């Protein structure tokens, strides 16, 4: 066991790099980040000011890396955080932060507060101050291969029943395939219909693709709990499978943080470049649309709106792709207030949905989403993240709203054009 207060503090000190030091130095205490955080906006509680959540990390930075801090620490005037303090800060660092990145975007001096929270969580988990729910999820992901405890045989059964329903072959471990699709646990446990929709679209586009029996899980609880060690272990399962199968591209499914992990954090985590490229499902769909391999026979008639997953817009830059697809798929698409890069988080990202300690707060923050949805008057919300979908459905249920959430793949598959002559000739 490596968990101890000392290891937590050492990990915090080890995690402070040049960006973190310059962020703390450049903070002008303007408080703008408070207004960017849905937890602060909905509760009005100043403790939810994003930069305030970093107090333990800031103290370590002062003590270890600033002249004054070192002097004060010597004189005993700047004690390191103790167990009680870390326990208190656990709720701020885990329950009240979804790593949505809105504070990073609003910061006038360019401090990436989300990155800082990630670093603070490294120390928290090493000190043993991570929420039980998130610990359980992480442990399950590490030991079973899936945060929901679904091992390969169970997954194979789910997929087999989909194959039967759709009449489409869904291959596992096909060597030399162009694309490897990894999945979010939410998709195979809660929304298998979205996997069916993907399979149909891929089949129609004539894609050479496969699933994997090892490293099938796209989500990364290690990133959410904030341990690079554990995140690396989980990520390597995908990287090793992809490179063993020799695929050209790994597809991140409808999930936010899986995309961030695979696409942006990954090479830094494993310390080398990939031998494959990573695309989000939305990017792939948009590529297929552009190439004429994804065409629809009709448009969705009802009014609908789109919820941008934080990790895709703010951390990933996927803003135009879903809109191209929506223009193609829907007759009455209406943007929400704050749509795109400024969209408000579903409230359950960054491990919050796997952390029951945060349930009450998450439910309060949903008021923001309700206002956004209500203002559009749409009855259907499309999104591209199975976690957003599950969290939004929770909120809708709690507030008894008449609103349906669907994934982008399902929306597209709804009116997929039948095979045309050209394709049939091939």
């Amino acid at each position: 066991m490596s968990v101890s207060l000392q290891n937590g503090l050492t990990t915090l000190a080890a995690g402070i790099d040049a960006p973190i030091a310059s962020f703390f130095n450049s903070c002008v205490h303007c408080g703008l980040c408070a207004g960017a955080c849905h937890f602060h906006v909905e509760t009005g509680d100043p403790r939810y000011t994003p930069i305030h959540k970093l107090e333990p990390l800031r103290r370590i930075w002062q003590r270890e890396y600033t002249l004054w801090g070192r002097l004060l620490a010597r004189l005993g005037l700047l004690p390191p955080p103790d167990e009680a303090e870390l326990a208190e800060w656990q709720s701020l660092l885990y329950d009240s932060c979804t790593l949505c990145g809105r504070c990073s975007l609003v910061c006038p001096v360019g401090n990436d507060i989300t990155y800082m929270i990630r670093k603070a969580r490294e120390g928290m988990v090493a000190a043993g101050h991570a929420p039980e729910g998130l610990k359980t999820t992480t442990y399950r992901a590490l030991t079973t291969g899936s945060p929901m405890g679904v091992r390969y045989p169970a997954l194979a059964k789910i997929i087999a029943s989909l194959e039967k329903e759709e009449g489409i072959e869904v291959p596992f471990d096909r060597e030399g395939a162009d694309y490897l699709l990894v999945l979010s646990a939410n998709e195979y446990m809660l929304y298998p219909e979205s996997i069916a929709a993907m399979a149909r679209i891929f089949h129609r586009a004539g894609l050479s693709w496969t699933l994997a029996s090892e490293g099938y899980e796209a989500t990364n609880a290690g990133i959410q709990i904030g341990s690079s060690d554990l995140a690396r272990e989980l990520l390597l399962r995908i990287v090793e499978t992809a490179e063993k199968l020799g695929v050209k591209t790994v597809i991140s499914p409808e999930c936010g943080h899986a995309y961030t992990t695979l696409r942006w954090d990954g090479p830094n985590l494993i310390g080398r470049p990939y031998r494959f490229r990573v695309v989000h499902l939305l990017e792939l769909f948009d590529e297929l649309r552009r190439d004429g391999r994804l065409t629809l026979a009709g448009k969705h008639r009802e009014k609908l709106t789109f919820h941008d997953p934080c990790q895709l817009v703010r951390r990933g830059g996927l803003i135009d792709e879903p809109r191209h697809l929506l223009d193609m798929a829907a007759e009455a698409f209406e943007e929400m207030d704050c749509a795109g890069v400024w969209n408000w988080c579903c409230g359950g990202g960054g491990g919050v949905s796997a952390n029951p300690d945060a349930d009450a707060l998450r439910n309060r923050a949903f008021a923001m989403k309700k206002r956004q949805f209500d203002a559009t008057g749409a009855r259907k919300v499309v999104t591209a993240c199975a976690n957003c979908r599950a969290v939004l459905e929770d909120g809708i249920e709690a507030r008894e709203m008449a609103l349906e959430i669907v994934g982008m793949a399902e929306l597209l598959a709804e009116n997929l054009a039948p095979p045309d002559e050209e394709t049939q000739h091939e």
Partner: protein
Amino acid sequence: MADEADLLERLRQQGISRRSFLKYCAGLASLLALPPAMAPRIAEALERARRPAVIWLSFQECTACTESLTRSFSPTLENLIFNVLSLDYHHTLQAAAGRHAEDARRQSMEANRGKYILVVEGSIPVAEGGVYSTIAGISNLDMLRETAAGAAAIVSVGTCAAYGGLPHARPNPTGAVPVSEILADRTIVNVPGCPPIPVVISGVIAHVLTFGRVPELDDLGRPTVFYGQTIHDRCYRRPFYDRNLFAEQFDDEGARNGWCLYKLGCKGPTTRNACATEKWNQGTSFPIQSGHPCLGCSEPDFWDAGSFYQALTAPPVDVAKWVVPAIGVGVAAGAAAGLANRLRKARAERRRQPLAADDVKGGEG
């Protein structure tokens, strides 16, 4: 001793008509920024004034304040006002000397207790118990305390009395301090300047006589009517400043054209005084008008504020000489701190124990 004959009578004896007296009162009212209707009230108050006693104490000073008041303005009304005051004690002007002079001071204090006006010229040395300046064996410090006790109003004339002035300049060997520092619990009217403008001194005294109280003062104890604006605000060369036209040297084209003297060190922008409006020598001119930058002589510590000929925004040290070594030192210190921090970070990374699945096993496992 104070004479009981009234002011108008004495003015008449000196050949000043009532008409010119009233003109003076009107001028004073406008100078003090009072409504014109106040002029008769000033006249009435001054007329009734029974030769108020004035005790003028001279400490560490150069007598220029007295010179400014007495000589250059003769024979204006301001001067005459002083003639009609009962100036009971003044080193330079009194005929008495030695013990008789001190007797005169004590007699006046006795006879006019609570009514006389105390004017102080010069700073007070307090180092070594005040031995650096004594008069008739009495230290300035003691004399000030003794005389201030029964004064109706106290006026510090000149920058030395108001802020310490030249004696107070570094390294201040005599421990010179301004009046306000000795009499911290009294309201002191500061009339700074090296020397101050005479009409300002007489205006303040007229105000005290008219209203029975001192005029409104700013945070440095100066009457706002005279010190409310900077020289720069009212300078006739201000339009050149606004158009970015400056004299760069005392004999260049800009100097000959009468452009702004800012770059030659003019302290006008930071100096509050009435020079630009009242001027000197019966309104003839003032330093900037005669081509010399303002020294800022009515501001505290003007002696220690760097060269008189360096622009206000010029750095106090030779930048060219210091900037390169300073950059070098800064870079070296930064590099050293950075290296030290890197070593600390590397040590923390070595000591950190990586996590494994068991570390998050929690209650469930």
